[in-house]
């Protein structure tokens, strides 16, 4: 495998470059996926049937906690990638660890939030609005869950093999994924929660 030392490790081989480019294309597909969910959500937002409307069930406190936690985790993984680029394995692992812990916190609060919705009579089967709300949030939450395992496995590989072109490539791609989830959350926060609370 030819390694080009003029580039950061994650871009150092041809395969690495292709992996990163391929992942960007995948993120393009994910943008379409979430765009479709959002479009569907906006269509069904006011079709609440006999169920509650968004303003009746949304609670700002857990949502704010989720937002802060996820935005901070995105910053942490940025620090992790920076540590990786300057070759500091332990710092990188620490930042990745903090990222995943924050992600886990996010997931915990989201599970609380879902239980709250079930409690106040906004379950999956109540109306078109609750169905699409929980599906959209659930799709994002499922992405975060996958990300937690993925990040954990990458940390284990970095711990074992050190920062190599392969592990650097995987870590960088994972960071792209994590940032993307953050961007999706900003849209969820703005256009589902804040708009719904207005």
């Amino acid at each position, binding site marked *: *495998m030819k390694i080009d030392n003029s580039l950061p490790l994650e871009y150092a081989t041809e395969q690495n470059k292709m992996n990163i480019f391929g992942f960007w294309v995948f993120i393009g*597909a994910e943008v379409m996926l979430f765009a479709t969910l959002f479009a569907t959500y906006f269509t069904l937002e006011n079709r*609440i049937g006999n169920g509650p409307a968004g303003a009746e069930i949304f609670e700002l406190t857990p949502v704010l906690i989720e937002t802060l936690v996820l935005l901070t985790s995105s910053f942490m993984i940025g620090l992790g990638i920076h540590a990786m680029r300057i070759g500091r394995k332990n710092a990188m692992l620490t930042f990745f660890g903090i990222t995943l812990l924050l992600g886990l916190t996010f997931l915990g609060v989201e599970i609380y939030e879902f239980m709250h919705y079930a409690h106040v009579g906004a379950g999956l089967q109540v109306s078109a609005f609750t169905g699409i709300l929980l599906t959209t949030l659930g799709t994002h939450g499922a992405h975060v869950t996958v990300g937690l395992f993925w990040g954990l496995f990458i940390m284990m590989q970095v711990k074992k093999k050190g920062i190599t072109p392969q592990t650097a490539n995987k870590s960088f791609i994972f960071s792209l994924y994590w940032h993307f989830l953050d961007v999706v959350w900003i849209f969820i926060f703005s256009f589902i929660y804040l708009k719904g609370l207005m």
Partner: protein
Amino acid sequence: MDYFDRFAIPHPSPAIYASMVAIGLTMIAIVIGLTYFKKWGYLWDEWLTTVDHKRIGIMYLISALLMLFRGGVDALMMRAQTAVPDNTLLDAQHYNEVFTTHGVVMIIFMAMPFIYALMNFVVPLQIGARDVAFPRLNALSFWLFFMGAMLFNISFVIGGSPDAGWTSYFPLAGNDFSQSVGTNYYMLSIQIAGIGTLISGINFIVTIFKMRAPNMKLMKMPMFTWTALITNAIVVFAFPVLTIALLLGTMDRLFGTHIFSMTNGGMDMLWANLFWVWGHPEVYILILPAFGIYSEVISTFSRRNLYGYTSMVASIVIISFFSFLVWMHHFFTMGQGPLSNSIFSITTMAIAIPTGIKIFNWLLTMRKGKIRFTVPMLYSVGFIPIFTIGGVTGVMLGMASADYQYHNTMFLVAHFHYTIIPGVVFAMLAGLTYWWPKMFGFMLNERIGKWAFWFVAIGFNVTFFPMFFTGLDGQARRMYTYSEATGFGPLNMLSFVGAIGLAIGFALIVYNVYYSVRHSSRDIGSDPWDARTLEWATQTPVQSYNFARTPQVDSIEALWDLKRKGKPIFKGDIEKIHMPNNSGMPFIMSCIFFVWGFSLVFSMWIPAIITTIAIFACMAYRSFEKDDGHYISVEDIKATEKDWEVLADENR
């Protein structure tokens, strides 16, 4: 026993029991055959675990041909049922299932894999690459498609087939009106195959952008590669919409949400919108590679370079853009108001402009050319007038006010078969015949091929032209029978006769394969058609590494320039080549996907949860697996290339 009742067919008939027995016997025969000839190891090592784009292409091809006949039998049953008034060959339920599976099988499980078969085989060779960017993902794409297709096909004998049309409109497809598990099969099998297609889309975009031969600029790519690139871009942006539509449909059917229902705020028209936001680009996913194939074939057999290369590229880009802006013309009559209808009417008709440019470019390519009427060329020449009928009736349908007359009639059925069959099926048959010698090392018999062409071309027109008239007279599509007083009888009988002609044509194609395997010459060289692009500049059959030395090109028709102007493509010394290792993971993971889909179809939650975990475990295993591929040494390459390079040099 109550638990097992769910697997029974809701509307059994002797035909279904017969196909159950046939499926069982075929599977037993395959197992006995493989064991008797001791081919299990060969099957596993050479095919099930392969990551070679050429072999994956061939597997796509075989699956597509099998599905073509499965969908073709559905079509024949429909034509037979409607051949005479008040026919009782099929009952209404069975007819519903047959037209539904015909549509799904032909679009998703025949046309799509056929396109990916040719793309897989040809694109890496045309751009001078060793393989696709992610060979193992490519294998995963194929196996996901294959398992999706198998899941869909077993619906016939376990639990009942979907019966809500290939568009599966809600509320008809909802639990209230479609109580059997058929529509669950629809949602999950297409979902599994669709994930595979999306992965392919990403894979080919990266391959074409990053792995082209040195100096092959974007505007020096062969036209088929261009269409493959644009097609895969459409795939990446259209298939996620289908993913969500199917996800929401599955949620409605399995978990009781009310997204598409008629109650509690649900909106049934939302399904139609989501479906066609994917569905209309899907039409261009099918047709653009076909355009690419025609460009290659017409150029080769006219012995002229493609006329208007730049305008060809521009028009496919414009078509791909417009393809996302026309979906609403599928339901002009559903009352979304004159403004929307007008906008979508105009965008629909606008697509005729870039398509027309392409038609004229092909005609001008042939002008003053030395045309050889080989089988691929016959399909290409036949395509132009027939497809134009399809295109012109498309503009008729695109006029929103006039669409109230055509909507949901046989006129529409005639129109889209007039685009898809000459557009896609003819192109696939042309491409198949054209690239067959590269794939298998011998040519298909020309005489039988020409007979097949005439049966297909004439049979097609006899089948579908009468539908324009019955449609304008008011024969609705998807009606399982009609009374004699309607007067539709004679023209429907004519359609049935045409369908038999089509069937004979396809049977001749199969016979041609059998005949050519036995009788065709194996000594055909590497470039039997005197072609123009890079895929013909390597050995036949192609070595696993494709090209011993990476080709260097600076023209659209590198091989033609080599042959006519003596411009060398292969320079420098042979170096060792890095190749990926085979892997069983894509196959195993797809098998788990099959069980996952089957469990969800029948709401068996425990196996569904276990398989979900298993799927992610496979991905984790892949992440931890150490696999650096292997190298092919210079000596080995020289040994396999020796004979061929000497011959090739002498010929030039």
